[in-house]
């Protein structure tokens, strides 16, 4: 048991757990078995078994049983359920479409369903259930109140509300201005822009995976990996001093983790070329600037040559393609910077302290 725990602790370190979750995501999205009813039950049983067994560990119990963290356990189950539900329906519809049958939604009603009673009544039931749930929650779990606030004392670790933990995790890898203002703004604007970028009518009003494979992969990657998983990491794996801790590891305030950062300029000028940093900041940051320019300006053009991407370019047209591609590349900066931090301790590509311009 201890061996399993220390293995899980080891695998929880972000460079491995993140990689593992990418592989699992890939496997899950390609799997057919997982999205059958039996697959769903097995998945539910496995998650519950894991939580049940893990709760026997005192270190795990302390973190998971905190009233603050109840929503995240709920989130794991809810996101899992809705993911399974959508994929289950999508596979069912894909089979029906392949067999020339009407989709699940079409067979339910040919023309339309009514707001009243079909929609409003379901909403009413949801409202009653949610109210009951909230009342029970507020009675059963104590509010996590602490001592009176003091501006010179922060709890260690200091965590954002659970739904912002993805953003807090992002703040670890980017300049505060990028991670706090630019990227959250782009997330919101980008989500609003999706219907204008992706004008493909397929999948409107019915579940499908086959007809919208790339789009669903992209969205689920952003939502499940870059949002939900970061919330789970922030909740369960970030301990005192914002260090990483395995789920069964004691949250030791004095845990020593050497994390001395380097910038790309220092990495190349000092460690690779063996000369000092040039005093001119443009020359100093030239590699980062070239990389950023290549990434955002040249890469989208090069990618058009790729057969797979070219299909989207043809469908979307240049404007939609470039806007969509820029948003996609910005999203991908997150995992890129995370990996570079974990493996090279890289801090910024471009670090122009003179103008507070950091990427």
């Amino acid at each position, binding site marked *: 048991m201890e061996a399993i725990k220390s293995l899980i602790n080891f695998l929880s370190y972000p460079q491995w757990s993140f990689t593992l979750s990418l592989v699992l995501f890939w496997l899950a999205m390609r799997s057919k078995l997982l999205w059958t009813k039996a697959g769903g039950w097995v998945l539910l049983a496995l998650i519950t078994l894991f939580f049940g067994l893990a709760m026997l560990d005192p270190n795990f119990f302390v973190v998971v049983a905190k009233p603050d963290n109840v929503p995240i356990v709920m989130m794991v189950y809810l996101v899992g359920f809705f993911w399974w539900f959508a994929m289950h329906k999508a596979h069912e519809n894909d089979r029906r479409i392949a067999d020339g049958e009407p989709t699940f939604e079409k067979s339910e009603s040919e023309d339309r369903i009514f707001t009243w009673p079909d929609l409003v009544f379901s909403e009413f039931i949801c409202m009653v259930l949610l109210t009951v749930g909230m009342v029970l929650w507020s009675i059963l779990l104590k509010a996590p109140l602490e001592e009176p606030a003091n501006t*010179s004392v*922060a709890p260690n670790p200091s965590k954002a509300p659970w739904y912002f933990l993805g953003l807090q995790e992002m703040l670890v890898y980017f300049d505060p201005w990028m991670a706090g203002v630019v990227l959250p703004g782009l997330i919101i604007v980008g989500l609003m822009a999706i219907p204008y970028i992706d004008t493909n009518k397929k999948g409107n009003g019915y579940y499908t995976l086959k007809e919208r494979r790339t789009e669903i992969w992209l969205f689920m990657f952003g939502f499940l990996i870059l949002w939900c998983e970061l919330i789970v990491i922030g909740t369960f794996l970030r301990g005192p001093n914002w260090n990483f801790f395995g789920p069964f590891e004691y949250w030791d*305030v004095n845990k020593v983790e050497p994390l001395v950062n380097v910038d790309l300029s220092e990495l190349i000028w000092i460690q690779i070329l063996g000369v000092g940093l040039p005093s001119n900041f443009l020359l100093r940051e030239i590699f980062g600037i070239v990389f950023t320019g290549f990434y955002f300006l040249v890469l989208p053009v090069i990618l058009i040559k790729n057969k797979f991407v070219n299909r989207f370019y043809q469908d979307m047209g240049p404007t939609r393609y470039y806007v969509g591609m820029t948003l996609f590349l910005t999203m991908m900066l997150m995992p890129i910077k995370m990996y570079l931090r974990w493996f090279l301790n890289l801090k910024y590509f471009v670090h122009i302290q003179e103008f507070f311009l950091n990427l």
Partner: protein
Amino acid sequence: MSDTPEETKPEQTAQASESSPAQPAAAAKAPAAKTAPPAKSAVADAEVSRRGFFSWAAVAWVGFTAAAGGCLTAWGRFMFPNVLYEPPTSFKVGPISEFPVDTVDERFVESNGVWIVNEGGRIYAIIAICTHLGCPPNWLEAQNKFKCPCHGSGYYRNGINFEGPTPRPLERAAVSVDPDDGQILVDKAQKFLWERGQWDDPSAFLIA
């Protein structure tokens, strides 16, 4: 727009405006106030002349500006309260002899938000606000570093950032020796920033 027959359709409005200049106001008003007879509202509207309208608009505009200005003044006054329930920015921390070489004094962090650091005989006051997003970091004696609990920014004993997301070193406050009692006087209102090369300023440190 609903499809009720009493309401005026846009085409009808256009026709009405051709026939008489008083009509369009009534036609435009009709959908909003269904119950009011159109003729009466037309008379009421006709009483407001163009010149009259502008003088009323001027009164309204002056009133609005005055009210907004009043609110702004009250808000400005609110920014300068009569009583401040916060520690003074300038305070005494004791004589130089109380700060031995190579120590980080934590006595004034909770009350005033500064560490008094003696680094090889050079005494300075580090302001306990993380330069990343403003959380108060902790001093970890065993690891010889300041570490922020919010996003994991780490600083050496002298305040230079070396780990985590923070973009610049911790700031320092002005220190001086009070000529009356020889105590160190810390003034947080005056800050010294490393990236501006201010740490060698004579007010930024004391020689023990």
